[in-house]
């Protein structure tokens, strides 16, 4: 459950970003989570409500945007989409893949009023 530590980092970012602005409440946090990031979105959602309790983001919704994993296949020389690091190339079945994207874990936006 490292997701709770990550949720606390999200709260820290939200607190920093809202501190210098006139914000009554944070209503939602938009988070980009890549398919190859080391994160379980359900665990993160669960952790988020616990981590936000008593903060300016209390009660805020966590809006998770999933992004696909991307890799380059050295055998067929194609850029392909993968859902896990254990996936084979969907074109040729090779495992000689270099991950090129999809490990994002970024706060993209904070909805406030």
């Amino acid at each position, binding site marked *: 459950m*490292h997701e709770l530590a990550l949720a606390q980092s999200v709260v820290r970012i939200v607190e920093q970003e809202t501190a210098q602005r006139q914000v009554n409440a944070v209503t939602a946090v938009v988070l980009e989570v890549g398919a*190859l990031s080391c994160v379980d979105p359900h665990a993160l959602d669960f952790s988020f409500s616990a981590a936000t309790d*008593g903060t300016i983001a*209390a009660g805020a919704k966590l809006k998770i945007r999933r992004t696909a994993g991307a890799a380059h296949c050295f055998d067929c020389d194609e850029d392909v989409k993968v859902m896990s690091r*254990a996936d084979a190339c969907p074109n040729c079945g090779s495992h000689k893949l270099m991950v090129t994207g999809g490990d994002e874990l970024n706060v*993209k936006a904070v909805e406030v*009023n």
Partner: protein
Amino acid sequence: MCTVCGCDGEGAKVEKRNGGKVSRQDHGHNHSHSHSPNDGHAHDHVHGHSRHHHHGGGERLDFGSGPAGVSVPGETQARLIEIERGVLDHNAELAAANRVRLNKQGVFSLNLMSSPGSGKTTLLVETLKALGETEYIAVIEGDQQTSNDAARIRETGVQAIQVNTGKGCHLDAEMVGKALDQISLTHGGLLFIENVGNLVCPASFDLGEARRVVLASVTEGEDKPLKYPDMFASADLMVVTKTDLLPHLDFDVDTLVDNARRIRPELDVVTASTRGAPGLGYWLAWLKGKYGAVVSDAAAHMAAE
């Protein structure tokens, strides 16, 4: 700040002689949110701050007249603050500071990770005995509770700092930084960081180490790398441990290695046993090869500065 879950004062602590703890995170803060009655109160946002909601408090910032009402220059009622910040950026910054610190000291560092019971501490103890140069070596031990592992390390004469993570499931860069404050290593030193036994969470947290080592024992499944790909994807070396048990098991080392290299094709692999063949020879050869190279790099870097 404690970045670990369950931080209620019994959270992460870096062991000191007197058992001191790091400070806990304080989530407390106040802010007012005033609503005046009869003001055409039109906004429809979710009220999340039930605990800190002070209607009509002394500090009055009235934004309650809704989107069509009073306008505040530069501000709107409901708005989106667009940012682009990595959730792990803070840990990455602290890890980078640890890395600079270790490089300046010319210290080579390894982050040892595996499931509980794969033999991290036993490998370390036997490695320290084999290396024999205790004054150049230090160990940071990560466990949720107890100082048992640090005590095992200290019996070899090597300095060890125990980090108890409390409910936390991994070491993070801040914990390692605090442990580094208590370690004295000379130039050319060697630092082992034994992470919390866990094949999932430690993968996400850069500690500032030079190399990542994952252990997989032959009493585990050959498909461990496929079940826990994130850990193997970030490793530089896999040590296959307890190989003296192979005659008693239906375990195929080649299958394990194939699975690991499906996740990370360039992964180095060595087998190791602390009881009988093949012993620690392959592991020590890898260690000395990398250690020597990195220390030479650091020395060259320092000479160039």
